[in-house]
């Protein structure tokens, strides 16, 4: 029954032609009409209800927590993370919190989520040293911070990036950003990707800061949140220059980032090199 419902959702998604309609490929996103969306939403509700729970308590679920900060605009794409969480739940075995939370830099709150998402579309008030110290500890202990500038109309993404660069210099003194090229495990933690993609046409790579033996801070310049954002009525909030294909790739990038935060360099292990190829005999 569940399988049938999922097939029906996929069929509905594949049959509909949205505003970003392009030639259908295997990377086609879930472009639906409002009626199709509501139907899919209902079906998904049924599916999720019947799905076996994995995490026992809500804090054991994966919450992509948005960072609140003073000054600037900490949430330029309010619906982006909710949609990413939905896609994560739909596509992967991750038990995601479907209404992601937000928090200021408070030790008790950060303790509940080892994954932080920071966005903005204008400059912001520099973080104080005590706040930076908490963030530093968070990263050292295993937390991951994803930074995603938003290119909103009327916003100042460059102002955000300037503030963010200043923050990172203070947060990780003596370290500079390292290029995360397409051979990094982030680009194959779930999907195989050849470049970073979002609403904004940034560089093909991401940038990162290493803490210990892992990339703890991942910085993009692609406005991935802009590609993920979708309003409550099922309309995409921003048109993608590259159409549905570009949006799908942006979701895949988002899924890979979360998978990297959860599995680290798992995909670099020897068995994955030995057995790469056939994905149909299991899902590892």
């Amino acid at each position: 029954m569940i399988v049938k419902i999922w097939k029906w959702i996929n069929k509905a998604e594949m049959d509909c032609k949205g505003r970003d309609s392009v030639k259908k490929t295997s990377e086609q996103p879930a472009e639906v009409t409002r009626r199709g969306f509501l139907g899919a939403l209902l079906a998904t509700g049924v599916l999720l209800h019947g799905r076996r729970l994995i995490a026992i308590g809500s804090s054991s679920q994966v919450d992509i927590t948005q960072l609140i900060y003073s000054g600037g605009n900490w949430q330029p794409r309010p619906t982006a993370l909710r949609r990413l969480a939905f896609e994560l739940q739909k596509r992967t075995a991750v038990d995601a919190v479907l209404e992601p939370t937000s928090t200021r830099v408070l030790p008790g709150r950060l303790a509940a989520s080892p994954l932080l998402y920071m966005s903005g579309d204008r400059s912001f008030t520099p973080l104080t040293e005590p706040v930076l110290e908490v963030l530093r500890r968070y990263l050292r202990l295993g937390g991951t911070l994803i930074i995603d500038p938003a290119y909103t109309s009327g916003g100042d993404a460059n102002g955000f990036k300037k503030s963010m660069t200043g923050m990172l210099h203070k947060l990780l003194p003596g370290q500079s950003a390292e290029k995360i090229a397409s051979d990094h495990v982030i680009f194959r933690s779930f999907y195989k990707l050849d470049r970073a993609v979002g609403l904004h046409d940034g560089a093909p790579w991401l940038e990162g800061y290493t803490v210990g033996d892992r990339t703890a801070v991942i910085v993009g310049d692609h406005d991935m949140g802009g590609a993920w954002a979708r309003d409550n009525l099922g309309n995409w909030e921003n048109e993608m220059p590259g159409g549905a294909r570009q949006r799908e790739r942006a979701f895949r990038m988002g899924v890979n980032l979360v998978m990297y935060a959860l599995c680290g360099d798992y995909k670099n292990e020897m068995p994955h090199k030995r057995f790469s190829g056939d994905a149909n005999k299991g899902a590892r």
Partner: protein
Amino acid sequence: MQDWQISTILSWSNPLVLMSLVAALVVVVWTYLTIDPLSGWKVRVSLSLIRLCSLLCAVYILMQPSLIVMQTVPSATPLAVVFDVSASMGFPADANRLSTAVQRARDAIRGATLSRKMSFRFFSFARTVTGISSMDEVALRDGEPGDTSFRNLFSHLTKLDEDEAFSGVLLLSDGADTSNISEQEVKRLGIPVNVAFIGSDSGRKDLLIKDVSVDEFAFSRKPNPLLVTIENHGLPVTEVKVHLLRNGKLLQQKTAAVIDGQGQVTFQVIPRQPGRHIYRIEIPVHKDETHRENNVRHVEMDVMRDKYRILHLSGAPTWDQRFMRDLLTQWPQVDLVSFYLLRTPYQSTTQSNAGLSLIPFPTEELFTRHLKEFDLLIFQDFDPATVGVDIYLKQIAEYVTDGGALVVSGGQGGLTSAAIANSPLGKLIPLAMQRANTPQARLISDAPFSPELTELGKRHPLFQRTGVAFGGAEEQLRSLPRLNGIVRMAGVQGDGQVLLAHPHIRNGAIGAPLMAVSEPDRGRILMVATDSLWSWGFCAAMTGAPAEYYTRFWKQAVRWLTHSRELSRVSLDIDKKDDSKNTPVNFNISLLNEEYLPAAGEQLTIEISWDDKNGSQQKALFDGTTNNAGMYRLIWHPVQSGPHDVRITTSGNPGLELSDSFLVEGDNREMNHLSPDIGRLREISDASGGVLFENAIRLDELKLKAAPDSQVLSRRDTALWSHPVTLILLFALIASEWFLRKRWGLI
């Protein structure tokens, strides 16, 4: 002959004497200055000199001199004459090396025209040294069963030389040493060692294992080299088959090419388990061989655990899996293989596979071919049925009972797995599972809680040694963040023991089990009924609680699950001075009680077993009782060479058991060193400053330590300081000064 010398009680360097001399000098200068200058310099100098002589005489009396007169005779220098009587000296049988040695020594002493008087002390040695009254005692021997140990010989002579002061040593040997003495040990003796080389290899037909060498440390599951050196004497052999056995089972066979009487072959040994491993190396006996004992050798390999090899299977990417992975990848002692289900089976059938970087799960390869290579399996929220692993659960159950280790940790998916519950593994796990379709309210509690240690948990090594302070487990648990829910299990089953329980939710008479262990046969299983244990690490550290608890707990758990000896309640240290069967073996046993405190007054049984020459198993049984420190020591004299097994059992219920092995070398080690070794003897003579005689011994050419020429028979001491002449001299000096001063009108 008479000799004499003067000695003093106080030496010149004595502080009192030195102070007196300084004072005398001051007085003399003062004397010179206080004499009227008009009396002329001759008067002043003369009086000062007389004063100086008087004072020096007084100081000399202060030093209490005495005259020693001695009666002496010319010294006789003892020479240590040492005969090697080891097994190799009995070769060849018709005119053995030992009789040649005695003959040469006799000829040398008989024909000697010595420039100084010399006495002889005779010794014989093999593994130990024995003093003998004359050469006749060794003349009739054929070589004793025993190895040559130059090390023991030189150690013995060094101690003896302190009392007897030898002028030198004359060593008669074939140089076939088994002790690998060092140059420093030779030099430590401090006297020249003159060596007579006695060696003949004629008529020998022998194929032997000359040497077997292994690295000082070997590691489990890794190839460790075992080098065998073969030697051939007089046999028409160009290649030899070499067999490597353990516990009577042939492990490997290789062929060594024998060129110029030597051949070598290297086995790569891969021990599966840590511990002491004893291997037997055999070569075939040739029909014409004169010595067959040296065709078999045993070697002991001390195998350590290189790494914990862990297979980590997770049913979904979760924070619990993520922090477990972090811990295992950052622990250098872990070799990790992990497989995580990144998609559910439903998603596999409903979502496009295009562009995915996922790989198939090589279940057959893992569970049929490689399962036994792992020390530990971790099922983290893993339902084997989802990926077809359920068909291997029988093999996994056998792996556990055969000594493997398993962790089964929550969430809900893994802890309600019907596949596990209905398989042979389901009977081994400590907690019975509820069915997956049990109502959520009866299956899950997601209210945060702080778990409580059960009485057993307080004593169990999983918690006892986790903390900084021994026994502070309860306090530490209380300081940790609360866990975020529990999967309620159906109950404890089999020999399952609950260590941690929910403080409020009851499961019968006890709290709902959160953590439980079982020990089916030789294996161990740990079950954790939550997926929020990661909060003991990340959350704890973020909120200021002890950050290291999570890591320490899991490391402790891995050690306990894999039977690390440091967590064993019974331990055994086998102390052997050397491997010979003639030296006793000390078994030092240490026993802890269930609370991991020294177990005093505990009854032990120690069983030592070995095979006799006919291959029949022999046993020695000993009973003992531990002392207040929980220790027991057994000293045992082996009666047979070869590998031995030791098994210790305690009287508790259930009793503890520990097995180990050790090797006792036989007397035939010498048979692997039959060849005369003139090189070794030359090294000894060169290092000590002696000479080497390859044929006849000439005592006049011996290098000897310069000895005192005479020996004191008697001595007589006469005190000079109290002698009348001395006192008269002092009085005369004082009187002469007084007289001259009077004459020159200075008083």
